[in-house]
């Protein structure tokens, strides 16, 4: 049975939202931990970096000027229902999308995402949550990972599975590109702790130390987070998965026009597979990362064009009288 476009859309966003919730939780948790031992001026710089990494356009000093403290900041990033990127909003978004396809995902998946959502609602009401934020972020990360594990072990490997993978890795590739861009835009004066934090934001510290050593060199970190083919939180790994999922989807949906989409993903994947670090640095790292972000946005748009909002829509738009005359 072919899959409805709406169903593909729900699965894709369910997965993207959950990935974003997990990423945001990890970022906030890492930075919380980082600023504990810093003096205020350094802490402010770190907060700025967190905000930039999560694509907020305000800086911490601007927020401070309008009377905010770190508690309010983290509350906004975590629980604010008005903030579409808060952890709460992301988990609610994931659950809403899952609810619309509840009969098509496994009941284990539904139970887990519903449980996670109910847990977040409860924490949101908990006045004391500010006293032990780490536990909360840990719960969100574990919930998202559990959901992914359940998805892995209970989902038929059809188009639905591929749209779930697609959502997850588009979100991950994008978040990583934004994070790296925010980090390297700030210039080369980062301290050791900041590099540790960067790796930890990508769950990469332990893996990095095994592949290289705890001696953190900038070039090696870029190599690892951008071009490594085996580490799940590298941009290349994520883009490879995007490429693979889209190829599988194209094989199973012969009626759709995926030419442009496959060209866009193939090109991005190739640049990461065959590009070298030296070329990249010569070309300008920040520019390259920015370019990745744009390419991912194009891939997202092309995916919609191919499978969800394909152009029959245009053919159906009634011609207005004005265009005839």
């Amino acid at each position, binding site marked *: 049975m072919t899959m409805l476009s709406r169903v593909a859309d729900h699965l894709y966003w369910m997965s993207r939202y959950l990935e974003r919730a997990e990423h945001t939780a990890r970022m906030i948790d890492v930075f919380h931990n980082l600023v504990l031992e810093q003096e205020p001026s350094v802490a402010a710089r770190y907060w700025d970096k967190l905000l930039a990494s999560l694509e907020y356009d305000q800086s911490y000093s601007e927020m401070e000027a309008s009377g905010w403290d770190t508690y309010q900041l983290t509350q906004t990033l975590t629980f604010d229902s008005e903030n579409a990127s808060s952890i709460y909003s992301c988990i609610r978004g994931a659950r809403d999308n899952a609810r619309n396809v509840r009969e098509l995902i496994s009941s284990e998946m539904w139970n887990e995402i519903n449980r996670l959502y109910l847990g977040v609602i409860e924490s949101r009401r908990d006045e004391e949550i500010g006293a032990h934020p780490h536990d909360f972020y840990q719960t969100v990360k574990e919930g998202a990972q559990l959901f992914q594990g359940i998805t892995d072990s209970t989902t038929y490997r059809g188009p639905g599975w591929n749209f779930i993978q697609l959502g997850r890795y588009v979100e991950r590739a994008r978040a990583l590109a934004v994070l790296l861009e925010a980090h390297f835009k700030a210039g080369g004066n980062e301290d050791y702790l900041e590099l540790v934090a960067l790796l930890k934001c990508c769950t990469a510290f332990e893996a990095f130390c095994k592949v290289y050593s705890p001696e953190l060199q900038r070039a090696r970190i870029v190599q690892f987070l951008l071009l490594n083919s085996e580490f799940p939180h590298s941009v290349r790994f994520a883009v490879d998965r995007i490429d693979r999922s889209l190829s599988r989807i194209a094989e199973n*949906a012969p009626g759709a026009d995926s030419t442009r989409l496959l060209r866009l993903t193939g090109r991005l994947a190739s640049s990461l597979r065959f590009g070298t670090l030296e070329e990249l640095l010569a070309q300008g790292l920040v520019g390259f990362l920015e370019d990745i972000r744009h390419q991912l946005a194009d891939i997202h748009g092309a995916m919609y064009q191919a499978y969800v909002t394909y152009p029959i829509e245009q053919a159906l738009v009634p011609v207005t009288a004005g265009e005839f005359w």
Partner: protein
Amino acid sequence: MARTKSETPTGPFQNYTLSAAFDEMFTAPGKSRPQYQALYKRILELGPDEMRHRQQAADLSFLHQGITFTVYGREEGTEKIFPYDLLPRIITAKEWEHLERGLTQRLVALNLFLDDIYHKGCILRDKIIPRDLVFSCKHFRKEMRGVDVPRQVYVSVAGTDLVRLADGTFAVLEDNLRVPSGVSYMLANRQVMKWAFPQLFRNIGVRPIDHYGNALLNTLRALAPQKDREPTIVLLTPGVYNSAYFEHTFLARQMGIQLVEGRDLLVHDSVVYMRTVSGLKRVDVIYRRVDDDFLDPLAFRPDSALGVPGLFNAYRSGNVTLSNAIGTGVADDKAVYAYVPAIIKYYLKEEPVLQNVETYLLTEDSVRKHVLDRLDQLVVKAVGESGGYDMLIGPHSTAKEREEFRERIEARPRNYIAQPTLDLSRAPCFIDGVVEPRHVDLRPYVLYGDRVNIVPGGLTRVALRRGSLVVNSSQGGGSKDTWVLFE
């Protein structure tokens, strides 16, 4: 000849009392009807603890399957389990044969009626039913005049509500001819009963109902506009917030068809397509669980976000079948209901097999006065409503409620009908560890594609509150499995 045992009620039946209402199980205290003997024996054998245990297991199974419905008018998204009673309601082969004949006759006649009023209007010309009455129906769709539907079948799925009167005869209380619901409970109840009482099934000879999904699919297939290819059939749901969403997903899975929402469909050149990841796919038959009003914002309610713009045009062009057809509600209007016996005689030249409940139309001054003087004894219903909304049960009403209804009736007499308060038959229910009688009705599901097909069973709805006569799920009703016997 097996002698029916007569004994004083014991065990869980200690408090079981008989009343003037027909009792489905007992003819006298402790003396059960033959078809209930095996069940009676089994209940006494099991004892209250084991019964309670099985009831709990059944409840849990409903919860786990997510068999819930949404109650409107309370806090948003209140999902409830449909209360379920463990004791089956049993119908003999002879009784069923009679019901089957009556339901078939009725549905055939009502379809002829719909075809007639949307085409030639012979029945109106012959003054069998007043023209005004038909055209003033809330659900009459003038847009359907002259529109031909496949096989002249307007109502392909009906959920007729039957009640059993004090003398034991069945009568039709309501014809639900628009988007009748509840069939998933019929099927789920049976599933649970097979787990709870496997031995009884073997001994007693219960006719199966599991093929309902397949029967429905065949019905829809028979109504496809084109005969030269395998039709694409979909189920159109209003979406996850609809009270019957569980049923929609359930039936779509049973039939192996796509569950679509309005936004999944589009109409181009009067052809309906669904948007899939493999491109647009043509749709031939829509089993729609969306009311007429919301089907097409261009033809009906412009504010509908559930519908498909242009659907009515595609329908009128004969490119897609809607099941049920648009405009069937005119035939289950509660005032038109009073004329159904005449409708049957007019088209089929037969006497009705199933009787109607006596019904007062309130447009006539003398009848209205008669009714208004007796509001405390009668039941008043709004003609275009279903689900037990906008209804007055005289004997259980307060003076204030009666006064409100009096005003409403006087303001819009065409909008209401009155009926005597029926003493619905009672069946044993397992409540808090004992067996007590509760009022029940019966809703069989009647399918009509190339022929009328009734799966032997139905939803027996139970007014679980003691003494209550209202069986609607939205008003505190529950249900029980219905067993139709082979012999």
